[in-house]
């Protein structure tokens, strides 16, 4: 069965480039691209929500169904 991928939304006008979401993602899904966080490898995402929970700036959303 094909797994359903989430949609990861990064709101750049809120992102302060702190690296927290990138560093603590257990699956290395995210990376810093210039100042902002960005999605590098969506396929690896396990929807653990850690990035969304830890972002101090309301800047990352993991949208699942």
């Amino acid at each position: 069965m094909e797994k359903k991928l989430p949609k990861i939304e990064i709101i750049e006008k809120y992102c302060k480039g702190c690296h927290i979401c990138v560093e603590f993602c257990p699956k290395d899904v995210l990376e810093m691209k210039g100042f902002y966080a960005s999605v590098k490898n969506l396929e690896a995402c396990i929807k653990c929500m850690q990035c969304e929970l830890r972002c101090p700036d309301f800047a990352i959303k993991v949208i699942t169904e």
Partner: protein
Amino acid sequence: MAFDYDKYLRPGKLPHIWCPGCGHGIVMKGLIRAMDTLNLKKEETAVVSGIGCASRLPGYIDCCTLHTAHGRAAAFATGVKMAKPEMNVILVGGDGDGTAIGGNHFIHACRRNINMTYIIMNNYIYGMTGGQFSPCTPTGAKASTTPYGNPDPGFDIAKLAIGAGATFVARGTAFHANQIDKLIAEAIQHKGFSVVEILDDCPTTYGRRNKYKSVIEMMNRLKEVAVPVKAAEKMTAEQLQGKVLTGVLYKDETKPEYTAEYAKVIERATAAK
């Protein structure tokens, strides 16, 4: 599903003022999730603070809010609770606000066991004013006012709260984000004065001076020092050296609550007329 924080945020206020990587935002999100879990009504909930970076929090929350004088959150909040005992009253603030200038208000709110919840964001420093040491700054740490290392021992906020009479005391960290809402929700539900200390980070005024290369190093430290109370039971004193217990540290449901006791005073006084 992504959590909808907008429900309890004042529209148009983001981005907030906190620095990149400051844990106060993580704590605020935890509070919002707790408010949502308990389905708190905005008109029945007051979030009250003093002064400091942490104390800016109520400005973002869409409910009844009060941003008061430095160290005085507990005094103003007590006024709100006495006037409207049916309200959920939540105090928020920093270690400086709560244990230095506000230390007296803090211990007396604990002593009275008044039904309010106090979330104290302990980043070990006066962040807002540029990094002066607070009563929570660890021994040896550098602050703008202790450039050669702090000679003072720091307060253990949880022990202080328990000693002063608080009946629910918990501790979490900004790293353990998914625990914050659970601790706060349990604290709000507790009938009495509840204290939730969140070990936090101030990369700007504490991290820089104390040789943390980045906010990630500060987060990793929180991750390493925290030991859940249950896990600690199986550890030796040696293994617990330098660790900090997290979770619900103390709970007493037998002690009388202040607004209930005060209602009895009103009854007696009314009958005596």
